[in-house]
């Protein structure tokens, strides 16, 4: 019997098929990566307090952006480029020593005894109101603060005033571009300070921290206490 030679498969059209697929993917996909600034809006309260406790004027950095995209900080018109410096000073002016003459938020020392007292306090309260989210949150916070004390020299560290806050007011015609620019500047200040803090406390690099890693989570929690990012945005007045 004669051996029949097996015909080779014609692969010439393979290229055409691949081309077709390639073109399909080129058309239906985009190159851009989705990036953005993450924010958490304030939760809506069922019964909001009618009066808020007074906040000392020095603890508020007031930023206003108007319909012409002009900026006003603490009653003075400023350029966008100056905002970084202002916000940085707001956070750091009294970091080493409280100077009453500087109209910026004070730093208060937190001691180990204070933490222990508060932890006991909140634990007792939790026994009478088990499952209270606010109490649990506070307890967590104080436990993190306690750890911070333990890690710091002299078992104590300094914390920016509890009511220190950036108040960012906009008008209905303020452009979204400016809004993001300002948020970005405030975020830069906070991130820069957190990077410094990581250096100082000999933690891992801030930008390498992984939110899903338990060890890193603890560091992030502490950083949020040391360099809090508190921005309030009043509703737009029409």
């Amino acid at each position, binding site marked *: 019997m004669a051996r029949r030679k097996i015909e080779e498969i014609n692969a010439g059209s393979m290229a055409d098929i691949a081309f077709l697929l390639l073109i399909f993917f080129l058309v239906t996909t985009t190159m851009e990566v989705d990036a953005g600034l993450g924010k958490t809006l*304030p939760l809506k309260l069922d019964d909001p307090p009618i009066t808020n406790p007074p906040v000392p004027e020095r603890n508020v950095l007031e930023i206003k952006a108007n319909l012409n995209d002009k900026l006003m900080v603490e009653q003075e018109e400023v350029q966008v480029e100056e905002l970084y410096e202002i916000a940085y000073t707001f956070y750091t002016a009294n970091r080493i020593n409280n100077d009453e003459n500087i109209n910026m938020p004070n730093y208060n020392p937190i001691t180990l005894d204070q933490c222990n007292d508060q932890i006991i306090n909140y634990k007792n309260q939790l026994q009478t109101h088990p499952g209270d989210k606010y109490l649990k949150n506070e307890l967590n916070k104080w436990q993190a603060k306690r750890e911070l004390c333990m890690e710091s020299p002299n078992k104590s560290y300094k914390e920016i005033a509890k009511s220190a806050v950036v108040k960012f007011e906009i008008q209905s015609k303020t452009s979204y571009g400016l809004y993001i620019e300002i948020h970005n500047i405030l975020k830069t200040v906070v991130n820069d300070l957190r990077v410094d803090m990581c250096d100082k406390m000999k933690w891992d690099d801030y930008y390498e921290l992984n939110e899903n890693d338990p060890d890193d989570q603890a560091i992030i929690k502490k950083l949020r206490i040391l360099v809090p990012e508190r921005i309030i945005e009043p509703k737009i007045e029409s």
Partner: protein
Amino acid sequence: MSKFKKGGKKGIPGVNTSALPDIIFMLLFFFMVATTMKEVELQVTLEKPVANQAIPIEDKDNVDFIYIGFPIDAEEGTEPRIQLDDRLAPDYTVVSLWKEQKAREGKTPFDIVTSLKVDENVGMRIVSNVKEELRDIDAIKINYSADQTK
């Protein structure tokens, strides 16, 4: 002398194209890996602002996108509009309903991040209204979409 020469036509041999599919496949895989599917056909302008602190969104499956910009179709007017999925929303009040309908199995609106993709020239009024709508249903995790670099 011409022992090896056998008659017949002598021409330029054809280029071997058997490696061509491999090359094309390689290109194909590159594009499949490096790109993402378009989510929707945009019906509004979207000039994204730049923010160097922006962080890439990793878990895209658990994100809803809201687009706000000026309508591309001139018949829709010149006021900024909201685009939900493939349609322009009549106004901002439908946002909370839409968001609730998009809820995934076993998840509440709170768990799903809402990414706001807004044109940088849009006024804050409409954005602010949308944020209030989202707050009403506790969808408080939001992400302001921005490009990391120009």
